[in-house]
């Protein structure tokens, strides 16, 4: 899946021991997010801004799930959720932060569930049954997308839109 899109997952940031264990098992770099050091041990500068601390706390608390989330499964997490696998129809993921699906998203995802309108939902194939970000709800058009590509869903002008994923979007603030 990764190679197909010429992308590489190189690090997993988390405070959850289980998440970091899973990542290490995959040979990925991990660190204690929020520990003020990056992978090389250098000091990190704190993100400025009014929600800086809250954002960092959320980021610190990512749930990493390396399996297909099947129908009937429900994942609820205060922070971000990263799924390495598919999210099948009938499954639901509810996250306080962002939701990244490294696979096919065909189920239900609610990102920014506590009202964070900046939250993102990304998937290698974004064909969900329904998406929610904060208090916005979106139902994707029927039928399969004609071209499968990684997409990001976010709120623009009070509605959820899906955009093709591009590297330069990565630094969105």
């Amino acid at each position, binding site marked *: 899946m990764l190679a197909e899109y010429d992308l590489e997952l190189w690090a997993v940031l988390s405070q959850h021991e289980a998440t970091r264990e899973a990542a290490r098992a995959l040979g990925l770099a991990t660190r204690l997010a929020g520990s003020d050091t990056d992978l090389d041990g250098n000091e990190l500068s704190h993100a400025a801004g009014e929600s800086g601390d809250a954002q960092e706390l959320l980021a610190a608390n990512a749930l990493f799930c390396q399996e297909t989330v099947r129908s009937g*499964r429900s994942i609820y997490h205060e922070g971000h959720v990263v799924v390495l696998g598919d999210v099948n129809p009938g499954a639901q993921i509810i996250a306080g932060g962002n939701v990244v699906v490294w696979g096919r998203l065909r189920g239900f995802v609610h990102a920014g569930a506590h009202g964070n309108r900046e939250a993102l939902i990304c998937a290698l194939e974004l064909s969900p049954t329904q998406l929610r970000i904060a208090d916005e709800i979106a139902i994707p058009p029927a039928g399969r997308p004609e071209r499968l590509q990684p997409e990001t869903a976010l709120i623009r002008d009070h509605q959820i839109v899906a955009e093709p994923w591009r590297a330069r979007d990565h630094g969105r603030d």
Partner: protein
Amino acid sequence: MHAKVITVTSGKGGVGKTTVTANLAAALAMLGRRVVALDADIGLRNLDVVMGLENRIVYDLVDVVEGRCRLPQAMIRDKRFPELYLIPAAQTRDKMAVSPSDMVLVCDQLRQDMDYVLIDSPAGIERGFRNAVAPADQVIVVTNPEVSAVRDADRIVGLLEAEEHGPGQLIINRLKPQMVARGDMLSIADVLDILAIDLLGVIPEDEDILVGSNRGAPVAMNGSHSASAGQAFRNIARRLEGEDVPIMELSHQGGLFGRLRAWMSGR
């Protein structure tokens, strides 16, 4: 001797669990294996009817569990085969009459002198399902090529993974090649795309199955023509035996035109 315990389940009702159980039991028995089919659908038993053994029931699974008879007394021998037995479910009780540990105990006894124990699971994901799956060495998930059945199968696979029974192996039942060709039915690839588990076999829609079920004579016993459901069941039995049998080519009766259309659409 150490039997393999295989549970046939699906989540959704009516997709063909009982048909698959009866036919695989018959097909394995035809290969000379010692097989017992165990109906875990207490209160809604059907396996005895499909196998044509209903009128020979004296004791059932609940009688065994509650100590009213010994296990061999509840095993009805199907005389059409060298060694095929049925343990029927009770019709007048419900799923709570048996616990998962009862099922493990019964199956451990059966393991002694059988080659296969095939358990027909009830629909659903509650007690009856948990009873049926508890003793399983291997689980077969049956689905139909339709969205609701696949959704329920996906739920079942998730539950099996959570209970560390492995993801199970898939049988797609009632496939209509003509409908798939028209794009009106999920294809094998569509189903596997969602479920992502090993495919054990594909059973084509076949009127003979209904006829056989009503007569109490599973189609695996006869129906020698190559593309029949009976052949599909016999192939699955051989796969369970460890043979490498390719999935049967299910061609619709489209002839040259159908093939041309397939080419034109780039397949």
